[in-house]
């Protein structure tokens, strides 16, 4: 068989673009995902720069201006204490977004290694870990979070910890399931037949292949965290009044739904926007991580085969 002539390259040495870098190049092609990313970035930015952006102090009470509809003065109206809804929205984003992101981070750091270990090693380790997960899953999630916060004391950090602890087992169970399926793939045996050790198998073969469902699950975890924080704050755990948080403000606004719907619509809209953005991003991320889903131009490789 004739040896193929290597095409002389324009750059000095042969290069492989890393799989992750190729994935990163794919992501911007997903329009909805980019939109989600931009929205979320804007939300984060306004929350971070709240001190400069917010027109009013979010906890400043002004009873003379209570329940005012949106106007040039108060873009999104005022609440029952005459506080500026827009300012509370911007400050509330700090709480809600950090709860969402930290819970996602916590669930990932706890749940993914547990699930991978359980799925990869199987046997006794799997049994032990999954019974532990089962124990967590027997409680209604919100009740468990309430119990944990009750134990640790009502404080936003404890809320994050509790929500993370509630979400991690769900993720662990899901990762374990996917890992079990991928572990049996021929390419895992093939990699072992070429000398790959457990570390390599788990990180570059198993983890990369179970990433798609993980990403999707994490977007759900984020949404659940934002909403759960709202519930916990409503119940008196978590964010303490008068500190703003989307969930808290939403709960409070329910009482004024008839007279001041803007009070309700603003935080609800923010939560919706945020969760939607994350979901879109999740979609894009999932596709970017799976080369088979790439919408490539007709490449050289395809033309040949």
């Amino acid at each position, binding site marked *: 068989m004739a040896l193929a002539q290597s095409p002389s390259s324009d750059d000095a040495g042969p290069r*492989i673009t890393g799989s992750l870098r190729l994935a990163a190049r794919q992501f911007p092609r997903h329009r909805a995902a980019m939109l989600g990313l931009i929205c979320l970035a804007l939300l984060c930015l306004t929350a971070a720069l709240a001190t400069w952006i917010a027109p009013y102090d979010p906890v400043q009470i002004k009873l003379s201006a209570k329940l005012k509809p949106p106007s040039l003065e108060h873009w999104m109206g005022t609440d029952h204490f005459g506080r500026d809804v827009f300012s509370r929205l911007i400050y509330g984003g700090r709480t809600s977004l950090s709860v969402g992101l930290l819970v996602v981070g916590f669930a990932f750091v706890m749940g993914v290694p547990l699930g991978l270990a359980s799925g990869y090693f199987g046997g006794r380790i799997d049994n032990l870990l999954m019974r532990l997960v089962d124990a967590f899953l027997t409680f209604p999630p919100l009740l468990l979070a309430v119990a944990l916060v009750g134990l640790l004391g009502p404080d936003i950090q404890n809320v994050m910890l509790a929500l993370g602890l509630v979400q991690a087992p769900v993720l662990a169970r899901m990762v374990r399931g996917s890992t079990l399926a991928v572990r049996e793939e021929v390419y895992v045996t*093939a990699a072992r037949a*070429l*000398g790959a*050790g457990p570390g390599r198998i788990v990180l570059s073969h198993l983890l990369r292949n179970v990433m798609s469902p993980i990403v999707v699950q994490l977007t759900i975890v984020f949404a659940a965290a934002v909403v759960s924080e709202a519930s916990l704050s409503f119940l008196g755990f978590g964010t303490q009044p008068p500190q703003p948080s989307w969930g808290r403000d939403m709960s409070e606004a329910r009482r004024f739904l008839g007279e001041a719907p803007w009070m309700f619509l603003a935080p609800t809209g923010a939560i919706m926007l945020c969760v939607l953005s994350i979901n879109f991003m999740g979609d894009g991320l999932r596709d970017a991580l799976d080369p088979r889903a790439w919408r490539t131009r007709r490449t050289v490789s395809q033309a040949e085969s």
Partner: protein
Amino acid sequence: MPLLRVHNLRTRFATDLGAVRAVEGVSFDLEEGEVLGLVGESGSGKSVTALSIMRLVPEPPGKVTADAMTLAGTDLLRLSEAEAREIRGSRMAMIFQDPMRSLNPVLTIGRQMTEVLRRHQKLGGAAARRRAIELLETVGIPMAERRLRSYPHQFSGGMRQRVMIAMALSCNPRLLIADEATTALDVTIQAQIIDLVKRLTRERGTSVIWISHDLGVVAGLCDRVNVMYAGTIVESGPIRELFHRPSHGYTLALMGSAARVDGSDVRRLSPIEGVPPNLIDPIPLCPFLPRCRVSVAACRARPPVPRQFGAGHWASCFADLAP
């Protein structure tokens, strides 16, 4: 001394119904540069034999024992898992049946190839990439440099098997095990892959164990054949000997069930009736007896012992099948 010596290999798998004797007393030697065929139907223990040699049988539920199993003097059974990993891919390598599934779909070809080179040859990134390009060219993949950035799904089945061969041979192993490596490919591609393996292993003096249920493929490639049935080798011999003088009832039946395309044989194909035996219960007599068409009285009286039929040609069969 042979490169690979396997003596009395037994591999069992624990199940709820009892131990499955997947491989039961397999012995053979493989010389440097020799190409050995391992033939038999599904469940005859070919793949398990290969996985046992590679130390890839999961234990538990598997259990691998042997009186001896050495590769170039290294006792394969005594290796720790870490030592076995060092040897896999560098001194012995294996390619699998389904090229569509033996490459990781989310990693580039380049990444998967350089992974092996970096691990065993301790090459740096750039050196590993150069070597990967050379290897792809050696196995006949055009525009190798660009193909490193491709993903498995952008390759056809034949191309993927070429990549697998390139990966398996990348660290110059002494032993290559090909488990039904061409079964999933169409016939023209199959011939190309066989030629490729033949050329590359001959150039490098690599010993090959070629597992197949296709006698035609084995005939074109191998120096010697072991015919396996129910976890044992029932006949072994040089390729010509064995084809001209099949001396076991099972080998004979296998040949009767293989299609010939040269028109020399216009009889109907004769499938082998019945099913292979349950491997949980011990098999006291010849395992092929219930399906055998040439059995004699002795078959029903005592277990067969290997009989010599020529130089290096033996079969565990009582029947006289001389043409």
